[in-house]
Structure formats: structure tokens, C-alpha cells
């Protein structure tokens, strides 16, 4: 059986508070670092997408031009004649 005096020797609330503060601080730093990593990852992803888009050659779309022509024809009244 361990005596109350021996137990009192181990009882230290300020030490517990110190450890708790340390853990809370560490958790906060870890959270900030995780957010930083997520934002960094998204930025890198955005840059990659922008660069990839910049490298893509501009393609002409004949079908869409034809459609536009038909629309303009329609506006001019050509479409009504058909």
C-alpha cells in the first residue's frame, strides 16, 4: 500500500496544465500547417491547370461557325425563304 505522502509527491496540477498547454499549442500549429499544405496543394493544382490550358492549341469549330452563319442568315430573312 502506497502512502498518501508518496502520492502527494507525484500530484502536480501545474505540470498537468503545462502539458495540456503544450498539447493545445502543438495541435494549433499542426492545424495551421495542415491548412497551409491544403492551400499550397490547391495553388499548385491551379497553376498546373492554367499552364496546361495555355499550352493547348486553339481549335476552330466549323460546325459552330456554320450554325452562326445560319443564325445570321435567319436574322437577315434568308431563313424564312426555305
Amino acid at each position: 500500500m502506497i502512502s498518501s505522502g508518496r502520492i502527494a509527491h507525484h500530484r502536480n496540477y501545474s505540470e498537468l496544465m503545462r502539458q495540456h498547454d503544450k498539447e493545445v499549442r502543438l495541435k494549433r500549429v499542426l492545424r495551421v500547417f495542415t491548412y497551409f499544405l491544403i492551400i499550397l496543394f490547391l495553388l499548385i493544382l491551379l497553376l498546373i491547370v492554367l499552364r496546361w490550358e495555355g499550352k493547348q492549341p486553339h481549335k476552330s469549330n466549323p460546325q459552330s461557325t456554320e450554325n452562326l452563319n445560319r443564325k445570321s442568315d435567319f436574322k437577315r430573312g434568308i431563313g424564312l425563304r426555305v
Partner: protein
Amino acid sequence: MLSEDEIRQEYAILEQSGRNPEAFGELYEKYYDKIFHFIYRQTDDEDLTADLCSQTFLNALKNCQRFEFRGVPVSSWFYRIAANEVNKHYRKEKKMRVFSIEETRVRELIEMSDDVMDEELIQRLLNYLKELPTDMLEVLELRFFEDRDFGEIAFILNITESGAKMRTYRALDRLRKNFNLSIKYDGKK
């Protein structure tokens, strides 16, 4: 045993500790010795007990915002964390589990039965208790040495209340068969 009002008051302190950790000091001072004894009985090592006890209260403080009122005293939650810490320690170290039961506790146990106190019987019972399976020793310790009711034992060991009763019954049955000790569930004669 604590009244429902006292239990709710302790819960209020625990809730407050989430916002202001300084408030936790009251519960720490109140239960440190009990938790220390509880762990010490399962480790028989003063320094290790001090470490596990600190870890128990640190975990409690860290998770106090998540704790909900379940009708059991706050101390039962501390016992549960302590029991988990002890289990974790034994799993990690892969050591044989130690259960040290003081002679005075065994005397108290014999006093609960009708039997006459006999030094030889005490020694035999002490040796026999050391050989009992851990799950039985856990319930005996909580029921008779820590004076916890079955609801609390169930909460601490994360088992059902009927499971806690069954384990206690089996342990007492063994004592009855081997030592003719007739101790009832509730410790009454």
C-alpha cells in the same frame, strides 16, 4: 455514493473545464489519490503509476468537451480512462499483467462474509486472488475495493451491466467453492 445533484455538479465542472482548463483542478485534486491507487494495484510500480495517472487526467482534460452526461459519476469516466491506459501499457510493453492486492483489502473481503478471520486463510486467499483471471479481478476490485455499483463497473470496463454482474457472480462463486466464503453481490452478508 454521490447523489444525482452532486454528479450533475461534477459534470458542470467538467463542461466548464472545456472553456477554462483551470476549473479542472477541483476534480483533479478530488480524484487523484483514488485513480493513483487504482492504477498502482495493476502495475505495482510507483513511477509508472505516476506517469499513467498523469496521462489519465491529461486525456480527461483533453476530451472533457466531448463527454456527455450518462448518469454515472465523473470519477467512473476517470476510472475508465485509467483502465484503458493500463491496458494500453501492457499491450505496448507485452508484459505479464500484475495485480497487487493489499492484505487489508482481503481482510475487508473476508469481513463481508460470515467466516472467521484466520491468518492462514488470508494468505491462501491472497495467493488465490493473484491467480484469478484479470477480468474477474477487475470486477472484484471495482465492486468490493472501489465500492462501485454494477452500472459504473459496466461503464468503466465497457461491458453490459448483466455482464458485470455475471463476472462478479463467477468470481464470488469460485471463492465460495474454494474457500467457503459466502459474499453477496452487494457485499452484504
